[in-house]
């Protein structure tokens, strides 16, 4: 009915001689005006956003990470842990610059026996909502983590945890399934985040962004995939010394956009992850500094010893002999990664330069000799697989670089094959590839975490490499927390691996943070274990 009335009135207008066109003209005109106005006010807007950088003492950090869960039980990726680490407290933590865990919520912790780890909590800990943090809270958190075992959660890190026991209000005892020297480190990861039993449901993940922890910050405002704003917590009692009252995580979809933002000054800092080109360009930009620190990401060239020609040790060795890590770092990554000569990451307790010691600098003569000795006629046809959909765009460059290096020696003919990540995982496990590209992000800054997943009895990659001696060494190092014993074990493992070359470590990522002038503490914040947002400040 009302529709009709409109029609009617329109026609009345028409008959009064106000015609459609004139009306249309007016509409267009209005629109035009609006658009111009937009333009004008835009110019007005410019002033205010250039000042965004310093405003309100907040440090704004841009990133292309994304958050999958604000609840520790569902969070097992760097993006989420950036939040978790700031909002929640853990029994242990890694001190800035260190890789050996120290008490955080705990006053003290120790192995009472290889399978029992006991902690005493700090007195008077409270959550940001005022609830008390007691041994019960800790037990609740760990039981919950294991109980929910969320598909996207980190519960697998607690694989060695048998049960958690709360004695009184401040005593927590962790009973382990088997001896696990890395358990203290596990407690220091965000798998050990302590949640408020009054806020979090016992058997399911918490929905929404109203999260409560006892960490250095509270989550003030959260817009998924856009922005997370953190305010210094008034109730925090812990080792961290905060250099800012508020920091903001701004989430970007594209590295290029992030780069532009830090260039424009709409963010004070950019962390994870700019393209090599961007980083190179920003280094040249005035008013902007680029800081490098050791990262944890590693890239391995993995052989499948069940597939020809990778089944022949000589072939693997020959590749290890000629592969030029410096070249890959330069050609594919503009030096944003560092050469890696051992499966154990640089700066990790127990790291040795095993591959360098054995093979020295790339040398095709030696490689040729190795092949000759094994009676293999060059060139060897080697298939190398990589995936374009999991390791970023530069993966393509890395694959090409490897192909080029190997073929340059005339000893190999490399056939590149790229497969979408889903299929890639299946193929790699089903011994389809002779050699392939694998990236590794260790959960703990512990040598064991770099080697055991690949060399244990059931490795989760198709390596076809089964070495009893190595497996025994692994059991040995996991059984003790005596540094000397463990270091020796790792040294032996790395030596054997370098000799058998089932996996050739290629590079270890650098963490790069880009800051605008006036941002302080970035060097300290850039910690291999976890980025320390509280170290950042503005002059």
């Amino acid at each position: 009915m009302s529709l009709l009335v409109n029609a009617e009135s329109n026609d009345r207008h028409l008959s009064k001689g106000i015609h459609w066109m004139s009306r249309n003209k007016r509409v267009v005109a209005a629109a035009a005006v609006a658009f111009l106005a937009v333009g004008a006010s835009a110019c007005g807007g410019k002033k205010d956003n250039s000042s965004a950088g310093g405003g309100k003492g907040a440090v704004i950090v841009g990133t292309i990470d994304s958050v999958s869960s604000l609840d520790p039980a569902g969070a097992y990726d760097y993006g989420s842990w950036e939040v978790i680490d700031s909002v929640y407290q853990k029994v242990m933590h890694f001190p800035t610059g260190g890789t050996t865990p120290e008490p955080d919520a705990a006053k003290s912790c120790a192995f009472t026996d290889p399978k029992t780890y006991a902690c005493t909590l700090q007195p008077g800990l409270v959550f940001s909502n005022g609830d008390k943090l007691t041994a019960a809270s800790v037990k609740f958190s760990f039981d919950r983590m294991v109980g929910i075992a969320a598909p996207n959660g980190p519960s697998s890190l607690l694989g060695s945890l048998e049960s958690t026991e709360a004695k009184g209000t401040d005593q927590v005892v962790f009973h382990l399934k088997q001896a696990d020297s890395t358990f203290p480190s596990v407690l220091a990861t965000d798998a050990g985040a302590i949640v408020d039993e009054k806020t979090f449901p016992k058997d399911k993940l918490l929905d929404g962004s109203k999260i409560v922890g006892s960490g250095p910050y509270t989550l003030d405002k959260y817009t998924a995939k856009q922005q997370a704003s953190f305010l210094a917590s008034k109730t925090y009692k812990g080792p961290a010394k905060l250099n800012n009252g508020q920091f903001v995580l701004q989430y970007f979809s594209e590295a290029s956009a992030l780069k532009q933002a830090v260039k424009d000054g709409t963010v004070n800092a950019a962390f994870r992850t700019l393209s090599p080109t961007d980083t190179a360009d920003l280094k040249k930009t005035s008013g902007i500094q680029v800081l490098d620190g050791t990262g944890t990401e590693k890239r391995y060239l993995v052989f499948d010893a069940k597939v020809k020609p990778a089944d022949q040790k000589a072939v693997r060795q020959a590749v290890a002999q000629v592969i030029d890590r410096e070249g890959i770092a330069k050609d594919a990554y503009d030096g944003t990664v560092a050469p890696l000569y051992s499966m154990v990451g640089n700066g990790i307790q127990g790291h040795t330069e095993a591959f360098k010691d054995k093979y020295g600098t790339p040398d095709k003569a030696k490689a040729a000799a190795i092949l000759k000795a094994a009676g293999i006629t060059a060139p060897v046809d080697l298939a190398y697989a990589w995936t374009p959909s999991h390791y970023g765009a530069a993966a393509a460059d890395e694959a090409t670089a490897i192909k080029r290096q190997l073929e340059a020696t005339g000893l190999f003919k490399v056939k590149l094959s790229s497969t979408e990540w889903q299929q890639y995982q299946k193929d790699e496990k089903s011994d389809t590839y002779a050699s392939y590209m694998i990236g590794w992000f260790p959960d703990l800054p512990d040598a064991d975490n770099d080697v055991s997943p690949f060399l244990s009895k059931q490795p989760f990659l198709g390596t076809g490499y089964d070495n009893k001696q190595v497996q025994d060494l692994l059991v040995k190092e996991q059984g003790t927390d005596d540094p000397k014993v463990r270091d020796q074990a790792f040294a032996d493992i790395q030596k054997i691996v370098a000799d058998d070359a089932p996996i050739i470590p290629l590079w270890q990522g650098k963490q790069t943070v880009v800051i605008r002038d006036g941002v302080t503490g970035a060097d300290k914040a850039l910690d291999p274990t976890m980025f320390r947002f509280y170290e950042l400040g503005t002059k």
Partner: protein
Amino acid sequence: MAQTTPTAPVGETPAGPPLPAPRSARFGGLRRIWAAIREARGVPRFMLWTGAVISALFVILALFGPLIAPYGFDTYQSGGTRFPKQGAPDGDHWFGTTVQSLDVLSRTVYGARTALEVMVLAVVFSLVIGVLLGLLSGYFGGWLDRILVLVMDALFAFPYLLLAIVAGFVFAGIAGGSIITAALSITVVYIPQYFRVVRASALSAREATFVEAARAMGAKPSVVIRKYLFGNVIQSVPVITTMNAADAIATLAGLGFLGLGIQPTDAAEWGYDLSRAIDDVNAGMWWTCLYPGLAMIIAILGFTLLGEGLNDVLNPTMRRRRISKVLLPAHTRRRTVDATEGTAAE
């Protein structure tokens, strides 16, 4: 393809105006198109020929890419010396080099090759499938028609780029990012277009008396479809085809840009090169973005112009009699004879 066999009821049917004469049932459409093209004038003519020339150049570039391009699409060194990384245009590399120290010129040329392959495949696929389904649906009608229409409309309702993205994502997962995959993901987008057009004209032709007659004479559906509907439909197709060709290039690049297209190590693809070039643009390196971008725009432009021109020429409502001003010769007054006085007067 049997020509008019005596059994075919062609001879008996009156040559209805909307239909080509029986003998030229299959080529009549094309002939008419060619005639229309030849008599094109003015803007349509301009668009038609510019488009044609550009498209031709594009095709040549693609076909003879290996001869034209100074290097291969994945060549990174010559004579042992490695190309500069992101080197600015100079004597050796007129268009500069990429982040992978590949020659931009060569990448661009080979990109045309890839684009052409995918384009041709996509158009052919969608043409064959779309036209076939359209004819069947329009000719037989019934539940087959109803279902097809629903499905096609549903596909049509999708934002086409979105559809291509989803399709690309599906196919890429199944078969990896090959040229065929890309072509298929694009095909999905265009089938409905052909289907609609073809079905519409098939429907109208189906009602036409001569087809009725032909069927009454017991002509096999295949014959009727081939000789009548196909000849009738053929005219609307060229326009869509060229337009889609243009679209296909853009869509392919779009997929490549989102990393859902062809694998970078398999072929040179403009969209992928562009996505890699975005970083360079922000770093003030214009050449890696400009040349593939330009090449793409020009290629699309060529086919679009061609399509637009064809549309103007073939679409009767757009056709228009050329204005040629008339100059009237001096008037010769008609002589009059007045019988009322009975004398001739000048």
